[in-house]
């Protein structure tokens, strides 16, 4: 088979049928969207209800849709790679094309699939769980979303315009520097991630302020649901880790566009410093994505075992301990880079210690299930599946933490298998559990169990078939990021099996999409707001919740307040009384977050191609929008009492 030869015609990437196929799909999809919106006259609806919304529930849904689309996109990258590697000596993807594919696979999965997924869950669940009407800064929340969205757009456009980054999702210097990666691809990476990173930091600030300052009266920190606690731990990590990434990316960009010498190999530059800074962010990042999954598991295990979570206090302290400790292990990502014996020893031990609070959590989930009255609904299935998978991956993590041994495992398929086991078995399974769990609250109907089980088994079997052979491949010497391998290494059989597993997971994804489509039309409607007989406040509201969430903010006296009230037969105390209803203070929608996103996208695009004046003008546009917001004094309104009464009555609550 001929190897693909990527070239350029102006800015457009040419030379490969896959690229042309992508071009065609993008154009068709865009035309299709424009056509549908025009035909059904939905432009105004789109603008009013979605593009200018500051409602956390809507923003959460938008994050979710983006995450699922990006899962498809990066999953396709994975299938392309696995297809090439199924047999030795395949070349249908040339080396530089392959490099671009594994780079975008990793970058999109972490930044544009996992992060928006956890932001979706934060937005959907946290304000409802703490009895608040919205987050602390709804406008900023919208800004965060559009920065994420346009950052994702910027990265995704790269493979048809200009060329994708090809230095791996970690983008190490000096490979990622100007000398070895001269094109615009790497600039796309640096600018897209910078833009979305700003949004992430803003989300961190937003949710910490929300959780610390906007809980319903009586809800002390130790009465909060464990998912909310996991979001506290996550956002503490976000605010203290993302600025380090911002600096690492910025300095590399400055090297590239201003000829500086931070990470070059002459004039005193130190490439290892980039790696150091990247992982100062990078290790906390993996905890940022797993902690919300842990929070979800705590909620699901308790709800579907009909039992209070075992060891609430231990669960809280383990979350916080993991959060802080994860900040002190980053050098384990570069044991082999020559930091020295004492450095490696310290980080090895620290990395092992972090397994302890994690283990506490796993045991507590199991103790919760013991003697519980377990219901095997989809969220519970995903949770139970997570446990063995994550424990296995954690065990291999301990192996990798042994610094001298890591010299053998580092950058082999052993490592690849380990981190995929953690990310898929931990994060993705957790996100799927959450998807099924909170779906009725978002949309008012449940996802079908039968199709869900098809997806579940395909994903699970597919996962093990794909990745367990990769541990063996790593031990047999197969390196990561190889675009092909020779015959006669003894690697072929396991690679072939691994590829089958990858396609099984792809099939699982398709079944999940089918589940969603099917359930939109035939899914069981959620008429009570509490389809799982839940424990936390969000289940006391109708599905979907009204615009303002709570007509009257509840007063809390217990942990798992909703469950406690149901046990005592007093759930009606959470229904609003007409005389308690007051005008509800709400923020107005705003076009500025969307416009700020566009401005950043434009600036980023300009800087990618070195059009500095153009980019500077777009940045000036950002400043103008910031000032416009500063001068905005009428950004709120009140929902009058009659309207609240009307809505609540229509929902059957009054």
């Amino acid at each position: 088979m001929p190897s693909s030869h990527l070239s350029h015609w102006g800015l457009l990437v040419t030379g490969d049928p896959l690229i042309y196929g992508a071009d065609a799909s993008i154009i068709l999809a865009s035309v299709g969207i424009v056509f549908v919106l025009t035909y059904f006259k939905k432009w105004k609806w789109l603008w009013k209800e979605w593009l200018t919304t500051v409602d956390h529930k809507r923003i959460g849904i938008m994050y979710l849709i983006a995450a699922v689309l990006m899962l498809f996109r990066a999953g396709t990258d994975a299938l392309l790679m696995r297809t090439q590697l199924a047999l030795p000596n395949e070349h249908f993807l040339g080396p530089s094309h392959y490099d671009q594919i594994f780079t975008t696979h990793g970058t999109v999965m972490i930044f544009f699939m996992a992060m928006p997924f956890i932001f979706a869950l934060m937005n959907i669940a946290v304000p409802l769980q703490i009895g608040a009407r919205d987050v602390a800064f709804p406008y900023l929340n919208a800004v965060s979303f559009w920065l994420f969205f346009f950052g994702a757009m910027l990265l995704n456009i790269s493979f048809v315009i200009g060329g994708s980054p090809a230095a791996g999702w970690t983008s190490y210097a000096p490979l990622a520097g100007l000398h070895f990666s001269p094109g615009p691809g790497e600039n796309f990476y640096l600018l897209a991630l910078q833009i979305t990173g700003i949004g992430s930091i803003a989300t961190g600030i937003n949710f910490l302020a929300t959780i610390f300052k906007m809980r319903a009266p009586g809800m002390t920190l130790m009465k909060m649901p464990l998912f909310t606690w996991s979001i506290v731990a996550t956002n503490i990590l976000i605010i203290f880790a993302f600025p380090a990434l911002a600096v690492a990316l910025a300095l590399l960009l400055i090297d590239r566009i201003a000829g500086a010498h931070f990470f070059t190999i002459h004039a005193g530059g130190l490439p290892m410093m980039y790696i150091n800074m990247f992982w100062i962010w990078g290790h906390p990042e993996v905890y940022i994505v797993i902690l919300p999954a842990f929070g979800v598991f705590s909620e699901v295990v308790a709800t579907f075992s009909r039992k209070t979570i075992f060891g609430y206090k231990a669960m809280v302290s383990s979350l916080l301990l993991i959060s802080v400790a994860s900040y002190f292990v980053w050098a384990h990502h570069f044991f082999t880079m020559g930091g020295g014996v004492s450095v490696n020893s310290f980080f090895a031990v620290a990395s092992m210690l972090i397994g302890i609070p994690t283990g506490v959590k796993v045991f507590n989930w199991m103790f919760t299930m013991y003697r519980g009255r377990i219901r095997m609904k989809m969220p519970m299935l995903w949770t139970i599946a997570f446990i063995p998978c994550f424990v296995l991956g954690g065990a291999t993590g301990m192996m990798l933490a042994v610094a001298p041994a890591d010299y053998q495992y580092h950058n082999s398929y052993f490592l690849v298998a380990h981190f995929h086991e953690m990310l898929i078995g931990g994060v993705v399974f957790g996100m799927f559990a959450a998807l099924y769990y909170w779906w009725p609250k978002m949309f008012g109907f449940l996802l079908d169990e039968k199709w869900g089980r098809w997806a579940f088994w395909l994903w699970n079997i597919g996962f093990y078939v794909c990745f367990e052979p990769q541990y063996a491949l790593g031990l047999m010497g197969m390196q990561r990021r190889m675009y092909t391998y020779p015959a006669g290494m003894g690697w072929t059989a396991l690679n072939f099996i691994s590829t089958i597993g990858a396609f099984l997971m792809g099939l699982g994804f398709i079944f999940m999409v089918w589940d969603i489509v099917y359930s939109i039309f035939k899914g069981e409607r959620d008429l009570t707001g509490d389809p799982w007989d839940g424990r936390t406040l969000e289940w006391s509201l109708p599905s979907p919740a009204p615009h303002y969430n709570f007509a009257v903010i509840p007063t809390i006296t217990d942990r798992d307040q909703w469950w406690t009230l149901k046990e005592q037969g007093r759930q009606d105390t959470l229904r609003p009384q007409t005389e308690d209803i007051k005008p509800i203070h709400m923020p107005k929608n705003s076009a500025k977050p969307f416009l700020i996103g566009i401005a950043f996208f434009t600036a980023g695009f300009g800087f990618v191609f070195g059009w500095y004046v153009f980019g500077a003008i777009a940045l000036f546009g950002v400043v103008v929008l910031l000032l416009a917001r500063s001068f905005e004094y009428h950004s709120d309104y009140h929902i009058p009492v009659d309207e609240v009464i009307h809505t609540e009555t229509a929902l059957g609550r009054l």
Partner: protein
Amino acid sequence: MLNTPESKSSLASHHTERFPWKGIIGYIMSIILTAFSMWIVLGHVAQYGTALFIILGLAVLQIFVQLFMFMHVTESDDGPPWQVLGLLAGLLFVATIVGMSMWIMTFNGQAS
């Protein structure tokens, strides 16, 4: 005792200042600390290591001058001043980033 949010505030017994004593004292303190730093270095008063230690300590002191004299760091509208915890955590992490980066990067004598 009223159970209002503001009665839990650290500002519940706040009195508006009559004369900006805090600001003036803060200003004078920061000038003195800065001048002292300069004298240590530019006057060649101490050895390299000692001088470094002293001026860094003086810089750290200035953090507290700014926080307490100017920034009213412990103020909160209701409940405990969580921002103090946030800042302390930030200080811890900055110390970690700077200190451990220096440590990691000194192998092969790349940093000093």
